[in-house]
């Protein structure tokens, strides 16, 4: 647990109640969380806070998830795992995210918080 305390996770999600549930669950597991409500804020926080992992929605105001992902992969933080968390499950959307370098793709309506937590743990090893 101690080792996890330092792990910082950035949640870029424009739905407040999804964001709340996610960050509460991650906090309960001993992670430090930070949240952004749109793509631009998300990119700024990646630069400022240098999170260990990013949970990224696709449909976002200002800059969408694809743009955010592309910019992360071009910048200094390109090795930070980016886990996509969306409800767009179409093959073209999944492919686009993976092509841009997303670590994994999760569908909110299919995944429980526990499933998300597992993926986070898996990618923070």
């Amino acid at each position, binding site marked *: 647990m101690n080792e996890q305390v330092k792990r910082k996770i950035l949640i870029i999600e424009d*739905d407040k*109640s999804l964001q709340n*549930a996610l960050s509460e*669950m991650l906090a*309960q597991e001993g992670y430090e969380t930070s949240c952004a409500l749109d793509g631009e804020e998300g990119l700024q926080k990646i630069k400022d806070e240098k999170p260990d992992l990013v949970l990224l929605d696709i449909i976002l105001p200002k800059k969408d998830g694809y743009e955010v992902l592309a910019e992360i992969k071009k910048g200094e933080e390109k090795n930070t795992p980016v886990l996509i968390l969306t409800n767009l499950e*179409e*093959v073209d959307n*999944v492919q686009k995210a993976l092509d841009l370098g997303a670590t994994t793709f999760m569908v909110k*309506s299919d995944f*429980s918080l526990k499933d998300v937590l597992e993926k986070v743990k898996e990618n923070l090893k």
Partner: protein
Amino acid sequence: MFLKFIDELDFVSSCRRYKLGLWQCPNFLFLVMAMITISSMIGTNYIARRYDDETVTVISVSLVTALIMIIGGFIIRGVEKIAEANIMKSEFISIISHQLCTPLSAIKWNLEVLETEKGMGDDNKLTPKQLIFLKNIEKSNERMLKLVNDLLEVIRIDQGRSVFVKEKVSLVQLTQEVIEDLGYLKAAKKVIVNLRDSSPLPRVFIDPKKMKIAMENLIGNAIKYSEEGGEVNVILKKEKKKVMFIVEDHGAGIPRYQHSQVFEKFFRSDNASRYRTEGVGLGLYLVRAILKNFSGEIWFESEVNKGSTFFVSLPIVDR
């Protein structure tokens, strides 16, 4: 047969059903075209006899042809309008379903937080009664999510945008998981589900996640349309170069006259609502679409009040 033909001639009501104006309605335009064609034949015959000059005949035939072509154009536009409305309807369902996904996922996740020990604060655990009501909300939410996900999956499959990640899988464990997941339904209807498998079962090349949706629908239907306390048999076996997955119930059954419609979108049998009011009729459509992707086949036998048996066959990938 004759009545059906007369019915189709009643273009006013069919145009009203499509919500189209008379001159946009293919049924009406078709009738007009038929009348013009018939009268032009008679007319041409009359003109050809009456006038010796061939030019008159040629001009009159050309005029009628032009008229028929114009009406043909109207018909095409009418059909286009119906096709466009169909596309818009699919888009509308897609947008609404996507919009519903976020709040439904939020309800699911927030409930999950509440159910964790720390979710309620350290000394503020939920009472058993509160937990029951919380579970009720969760179940209703799961139902809504399933409906929305089914709708979205149908749209994705129709558009060829569904993700299929295929691998070599043995169906035994997958079937066990599905039966376990349907525990709540079994308990509610007090139905017993027997799994009979002849292992080792050869593997098949499928997407386990999608196959689970198909199996869930087939076994779920069998439970739903069984009498309380009934029995459902799920059989897995090898048959020649195929793996067979069979689901057998002794419940409602499907009336013979509706057998040809079973795999159509939004199909619900006439006697279904006596057993269960829920359901929109997407399940079997989805099942067949999914199986098609695995080169699988599905067929069934069914008799009212005796039950249904659904047969699924999937090609074996190894021995």
